[in-house]
């Protein structure tokens, strides 16, 4: 191995070998994750957490019935979630299908909100490799800042982990400057040890973010499985010095759940990760509940969805 190759491999974190993934005990992981959810956040800390949750949110719409107008409406909500007069910050990104990247790009022009696109055969990840890579490249060309790809779980479970890693590397290459979020679809991986193993495969292949789920499969981003990903990211950071982001997605609907996930991050990775550059919450309905809670903290009165701007 030449010096340049070794430097490249070290930068990507290929050393030490993948076989080093530790087994993960499901009961213990779920218990620890649940224990971190029993913390009670009140008033100022709660408001700060909820505002951070908004800043870290990937506002997502992945419906067959999405239209450019619907995406534009979602983008307006992404820029000013609480309406124009409110001080609620913008979300991190809007996440759409590749065909709607252009519409999102236009609607978000002039704002700091990014465009994320699911690509590479979402949500199955089972189309031919060439079309998956091509889809990612086209989404980036259309203006996507971030690409969410899903791994081929069948290949992973069949033991072809090098192939899964190689495919991630190819998509990463096609992304160019765009950041790549690798969806593990943890609900289909069977055991927590498999989840940990898949996390390590994705980390070593150069993922910029690990993402739990597509949102199309249940269970999705449970606290336990999120903790496994976070610990893989932590260990990878200690080994290589590279900070990889985290994105739980699917099933996070309430402000309380969002705060639980933020506590998991703070306790596992520390404050450096409590930032939209390294942490995202993938959600479609979470924002409304967070807005209701923020409004409750501001006015003292319980709110109603009828008083929020419609999508």
């Amino acid at each position, binding site marked *: 191995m030449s010096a340049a190759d070794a430097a490249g491999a070290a930068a990507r974190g290929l050393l030490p070998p993948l076989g080093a993934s530790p087994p993960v005990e499901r009961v213990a992981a779920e218990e620890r994750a649940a224990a971190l959810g029993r913390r009670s956040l009140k008033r100022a800390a709660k408001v700060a957490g909820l505002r951070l949750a908004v800043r870290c949110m990937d506002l997502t719409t992945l419906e067959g019935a999405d239209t450019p107008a619907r995406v534009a409406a979602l983008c307006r909500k992404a820029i000013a979630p609480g309406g124009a007069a409110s001080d609620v910050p913008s979300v991190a990104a809007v996440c759409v299908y590749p065909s709607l990247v252009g519409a999102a790009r236009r609607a978000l022009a002039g704002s700091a909100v990014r465009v994320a696109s699911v690509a590479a055969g979402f949500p199955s990840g089972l189309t031919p490799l060439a079309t998956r890579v091509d889809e990612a490249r086209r989404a980036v060309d259309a203006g996507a800042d971030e690409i969410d790809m899903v791994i081929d779980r069948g290949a992973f479970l069949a033991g072809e982990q090098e192939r899964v890693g190689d495919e991630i590397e190819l998509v990463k290459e096609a992304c160019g400057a765009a950041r790549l979020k690798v969806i593990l679809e943890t609900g289909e991986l069977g055991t927590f040890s498999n989840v940990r193993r898949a996390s390590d495969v994705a980390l070593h292949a150069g993922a910029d973010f690990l993402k739990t789920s597509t949102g199309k499969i249940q269970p999705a981003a449970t606290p336990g499985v999120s903790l496994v990903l976070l610990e893989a990211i932590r260990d990878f950071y200690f080994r290589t010095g590279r900070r990889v982001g985290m994105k739980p997605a699917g099933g996070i609907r309430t402000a309380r759940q969002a705060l639980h996930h933020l506590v998991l991050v703070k306790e596992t990775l520390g404050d450096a990760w409590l930032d939209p550059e390294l942490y995202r919450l993938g959600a479609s309905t979470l924002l409304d509940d967070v807005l209701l809670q923020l409004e409750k903290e501001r006015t003292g009165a*319980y*709110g109603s969805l009828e008083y929020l701007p419609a999508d």
Partner: protein
Amino acid sequence: MTERPREDGPPRRSEPEAARVGIRKTWKLFVGGAFVRGESGRYRPLGGGETCPLASRKDLRDAVRAAAEASARWSRTSALLRGQILYRLAEVLEARRAELSAQLAAGGAPAPPRELDLAIDRVVSFAGWADKLSLLASTVNPVAGPYLSVSQPEPIGVVGLVAPGRPALLGLVGTLCPLIAAGNVAVVVAGEPDPRTALAFAECVATSDVPPGVVQVLTGDRAELVPVLARHLGVRGLDVWDASEADARELEQLAADGMKRVAFRSWAVSAFEDARRASSPAMLERFVETKTLWHPLGA
């Protein structure tokens, strides 16, 4: 094969049965079709070793959420079926007369059997009115143009009912049944003098065919709960019984932000006993919204 008498069994006991372990009842709040302990864990003694929970504002929040979830379906349930479900509630009340009588007596009601008769009859009355409301309150409006204009009553959604204190059962039944007969869902803050009867009534609701979430019953401190109810933007109407004038003024102001419909009433016990007045269909009209449709054909 013949059965042999057992000779090796335990000796037959001739002494009287040992005293049973006492079963003390834990009264709970009724939210979303389930009986739940209060979130705050606070209780109020009722005498005789029994307590009732003191609901907190978070219990109230949960109750409104459960009601809102049930509202969409209950408001679309046909009025005929709503009436049949209320009649079923009357059947359950009739079957549990003994228990309700005992609770009323323990709560200080002067004549429990008579109050129970009136209360069950009141449920039957409103069961009957359920599918007649739209016949009484709908109109074809005379309009100066080539239009057909019709108006009909529609339920408004979640209504907070601050129930009258006395009569405990008849007052609760007579104010709650018209709300749900009209298609609203209710969050009830039970009257303070006898909250236990309201919880016993909730057990009847739970075993009738009333869907979960249509009726919530909370016991607790009125002064603590009612202002939260008044400010809650998800509550569309507030029916407050026996409020002082000062309280009424304050609640009206708190309810103004959400443009909530508020009503304040105070009746003597005899008014509730007057069936002609207290089971009038006008009781159903208090928390409905009139929807008017204009149609360009048919004039």
